[in-house]
């Protein structure tokens, strides 16, 4: 009995200490950053903390849609987000983003001019580009004999259970539309139904629908072909020389991810400081080097080793991008995409 009493007293004391520690006010400013998984050189965060004495609370999402829902539900408070083009457009239209004060972001001058005045933010009021890239096929040269030139290879029986698709509906439906010769921004229901049929037909061949796992899986050669974002391809190709990346001839998606601040962010100024910090040449270089995506930062690109700068995957020549489209916000047609994707996955 006595021992029990002692134990319980210890537990109570522990509880109280932890409670005090958990709820106690922290004097430091905290910046809530919401970014894609594995999309930053994490040592950069510590450097920012050291430099500014602002604590970074770093959180990750898997797809634009996940991020949007989390934010839209009003359940979460973040100071800085890094979504893609079409999602930024949607959020601007819905009044979810705050205009940036560019006086706090002098380093914006380093962003290449071709990344300014883009359709999703025509007057450069809301966003600062972070990375850009394409969507394509990452394949293993040992397992795939011919260099793929069409999306149709992802429907090839030969590679049954060796194909990884993206668990992101705009991307997976988008490339299917491209394969069928349609725009990846179509709102035409008949075209979408065709894409759905095609994806359902493909399903038995697919090993898994993944997002972040793809890098690990391709590097250890668990699959032969994968639908990937270009930066992940660069990363994988660095780790495994048997891998190569191709943008099929039918064309693909060409995208931009940019840093934005949601309306009502508790620490807007700190978030702008963070954006400015991310645009410092050395920091932008470290991120670009670490994650493998293509940087819109002129100085960072200049500092990259030649083999990356001239890498066709990371910095594709204009001819590769010829048939590529940028996603645009679909408005109410998004519901159809959601429904189709749910039905494909439920099959």
């Amino acid at each position, binding site marked *: 009995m006595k021992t029990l009493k002692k134990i319980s007293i210890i537990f109570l004391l522990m509880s109280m200490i932890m409670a005090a520690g958990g709820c106690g006010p922290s004097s430091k400013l905290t910046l809530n950053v919401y970014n894609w998984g594995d999309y930053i050189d994490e040592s950069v965060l510590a450097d920012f903390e050291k430099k500014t004495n602002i604590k970074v609370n770093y959180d990750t999402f898997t*797809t634009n*849609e*996940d991020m*949007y*829902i*989390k934010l*839209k*539900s009003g359940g979460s408070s973040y100071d800085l987000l890094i979504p893609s083009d079409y999602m930024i457009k949607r959020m601007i239209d819905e009044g979810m983003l705050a205009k940036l004060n560019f006086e706090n972001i002098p380093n914006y001058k380093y962003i290449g001019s071709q990344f300014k005045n883009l359709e999703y933010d025509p007057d450069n009021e809301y966003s600062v580009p972070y990375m850009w890239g394409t969507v394509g096929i990452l394949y293993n040269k040992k397992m795939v004999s011919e260099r793929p030139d069409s999306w149709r290879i992802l429907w090839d029986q030969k590679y049954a*259970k060796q194909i990884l698709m993206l*668990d992101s509906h705009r991307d997976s439906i988008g490339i299917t539309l491209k394969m069928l010769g349609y725009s990846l921004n179509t709102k035409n229901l008949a075209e979408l139904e065709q894409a759905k049929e095609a994806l359902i037909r493909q*399903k038995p061949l*697919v*090993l*898994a*629908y*993944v997002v972040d796992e793809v890098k690990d899986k391709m590097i*250890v*050669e*668990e699959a032969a072909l994968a639908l990937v974002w270009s930066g992940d391809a660069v990363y994988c190709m660095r780790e495994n020389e048997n891998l190569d990346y191709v943008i099929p001839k039918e064309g693909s998606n060409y995208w931009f991810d940019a840093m934005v601040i949601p309306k009502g962010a508790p620490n807007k100024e700190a978030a702008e400081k963070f954006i400015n910090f991310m645009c410092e040449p050395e920091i932008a270089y470290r991120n670009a080097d670490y994650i493998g995506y293509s940087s819109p930062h002129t100085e960072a690109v200049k500092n990259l080793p030649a083999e990356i700068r001239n890498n066709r995957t990371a910095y594709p020549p204009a001819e590769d991008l010829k048939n590529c489209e940028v996603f645009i916000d679909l408005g109410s047609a998004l519901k159809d995409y*959601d429904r189709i*994707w*749910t*039905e494909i*996955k*439920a*099959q």
Partner: protein
Amino acid sequence: MKKTWAAYPYLFWIIIFTIIPLGLLIFFSITVQTASGIVFSLDNFRRFLEPVYLKVLMRSLSLAALSTVLCLLLGYPAAQFLAAHDLKHRNTMVLLMVLPMWINFLLRTYAWLPLLERKGLINYILGRLGLPSLNLLYNDFAVMLGMVYNFLPFMVLPIYSVLSKIDRSLIEAAEDLGADPALVFRKVVFPLSLPGVFSGITMVFMPAVTTFVISRLLGGGQFTLIGNLIEQQFLTVGDWNFGSAISMVMMAVILISMGFASKYETEQEGGGLW
């Protein structure tokens, strides 16, 4: 001594954190968002009756049922062994059965990934033996394996705790009356152990029907169970009304099967856990 006031904070708590949330869930399930605002409608339930979603429900139920049966087949003999009267080190053996439940559920599921992969340990060993490699991950087999692995102890423990309390003299009496071991089992031991079996079945079947983690990690994103459908509606698609309707269906399924089982269940809730 009238100290019923002591229950008031709790009453307050369940009203706010149990009853109101369930009310919200019901509210969302019977409404739809239209351009002109929120409208009462049964469309969400009607949508669930489409073949695609019914197939998901059937898949979840059959997979969970299959895993439950497997757990029972594997677990019953184990429980019998643990309850055997001549067992040395019984406490250690029981503890070893309980121990995996103390390890984080996600880690237990994750632990299978490096084993089942195409380049994983099992295929590595097969390769060394000169055997062809197998597709073990991202299919029914992997998901079911994950379920059986995670929930097996929940089947063994309740059966064990009932079996170990069976009066030995009943068995001896049956033996004295000339029953062979098979008959003793069929007529005496098994009927007496039924409460444990039923509580084991609920403890396995329930989490197996509702899981979305096992099917996500071991099923590879294309394997949709009803739990995945709900998660998707809430976190990726944002159709809370449809998501709530599916949740209501799931709750109904669970509560009905619980109702069946509780007829036979023992009083002991989670006995043997502590």
